[in-house]
């Protein structure tokens, strides 16, 4: 089976380095624009909520970072899996880059959730809420992935062993999503990602979606940016990287 040319190119570190370099400024600009527009819309334009008043506005921040944290894990698990099965080092580089970004988004999700929880549920933290627990588990999974990698001296082995952990842990992502359907908890049911009309008011829906797009673009901006660093570090003994460095210094 002849694989398309772009498939081979995507496994080539210099090509991806260059491509990422060209995309990064655009992604950054788009992310900033979307963040500004979405934040303004959500904070200033959208009307206050019937029940929660002004506090509800975290709805334009918390679900979005939580969503991106889950997406980050899927990106990490899928690329680690691809790297493991087809032995593509670049895929492992993507996974390694995604891990700390995902961990940060997860921590932000937990923090913004706690901030939202205090005025609305009366508590910063609730040990019996499944979604909080599984999101915390997600944070531990990101950190375990990085900790496991750090224990190995041989990078190749580190890549492959931690890939198994990443793939096994991906089962947590659908659990987080379905936890609000399976269990009664403080979290409400899904307002958006379900096979039905969104149960959120239209004036709030638009900034909600804009902020999802904003944080998603932000994630990929951070990912591609970090990926370039990973690539250079992994390939530091190759000719193309040496030429790159010399070109810079010249």
């Amino acid at each position, binding site marked *: 089976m002849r694989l398309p040319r772009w498939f081979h190119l995507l496994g080539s570190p210099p090509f991806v380095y260059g491509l990422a370099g060209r995309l990064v400024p655009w992604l950054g600009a788009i992310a900033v624009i979307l963040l500004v527009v979405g934040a303004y819309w959500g904070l200033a334009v959208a009307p206050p909520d019937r029940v929660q008043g002004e506090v509800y506005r975290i709805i334009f921040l918390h679900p979005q970072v939580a969503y991106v944290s889950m997406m980050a894990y899927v990106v990490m698990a899928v690329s680690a899996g691809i790297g493991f099965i087809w*032995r593509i080092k670049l895929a492992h580089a993507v996974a390694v880059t995604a891990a700390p970004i995902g961990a940060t988004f997860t921590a932000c999700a937990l923090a913004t959730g706690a901030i939202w929880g205090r005025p609305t549920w009366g508590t910063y933290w609730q040990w019996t809420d499944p979604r909080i627990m599984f999101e915390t588990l997600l944070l531990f999974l990101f950190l375990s992935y990085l900790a496991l990698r750090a224990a190995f001296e*041989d*990078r*190749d082995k580190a890549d492959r062993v931690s890939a198994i952990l990443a793939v096994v842990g991906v089962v947590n992502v659908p659990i987080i999503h379905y936890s609000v359907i399976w269990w009664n908890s403080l979290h409400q049911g899904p307002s958006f990602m379900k096979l039905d009309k969104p149960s959120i008011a239209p004036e709030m829906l638009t900034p909600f979606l804009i902020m999802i797009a904003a944080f998603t673009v932000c994630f990929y901006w951070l990912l591609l940016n970090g990926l370039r660093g990973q690539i250079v570090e992994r390939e530091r*003994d190759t000719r193309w990287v040496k030429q790159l460095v010399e070109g810079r210094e010249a």
Partner: protein
Amino acid sequence: MELCARELAVWRGERCLFEGLDLTLGPGQLGLVVGANGSGKSTLLRVLAGLATATAGVVTWRGSKLETLPFEHRGDIAYRGHLDGLKRDLTVLENLRFHATIWRGPPEFDALLEDVGLSAVANVRVRHLSAGQQRRASLATLRLGASKVWILDEPTTNLDTNGRGKVAAWIRAHLASGGTAVIATHQPDELAQKGALVVEL
């Protein structure tokens, strides 16, 4: 019934141990791997046995890649490296019995123990044996399975002249009955025979 390696390359980090290695060994053929310490002999043997994966290239046994050997062909390849593969807290006999069960070999150990000179210590725990005795016990288990390929990494280490002669005789017998062998050794002359393939790393 061939062990084939094509375009085999192994890189450890940024160091290339070997590349472009091609090898075909059929029934009755012996491959001798020679080279200085650290040249990659052990790695090559582990790749040929299927315990390690090469950075590039493919190893096949009877036409199938080692990673996807069909069930009937599992156990065709036997490997003895620097580790003995024996449980030190069990006796020689208990280890042999276990090996025979797992590798579906004949449960007759008396002749084997006699041949390898371990009859007297058959009921002694492996941890109480000398290094030479442990190696002999480890190599004895080779004759308990029906493996067609013997991949041995410096099998004569720790053995005296007598032991070395025994091992050479076993290998010759194995080859004569249609088996294949790949052996890494510092003393190729002992095991060499007409038609042996020498791989220099």
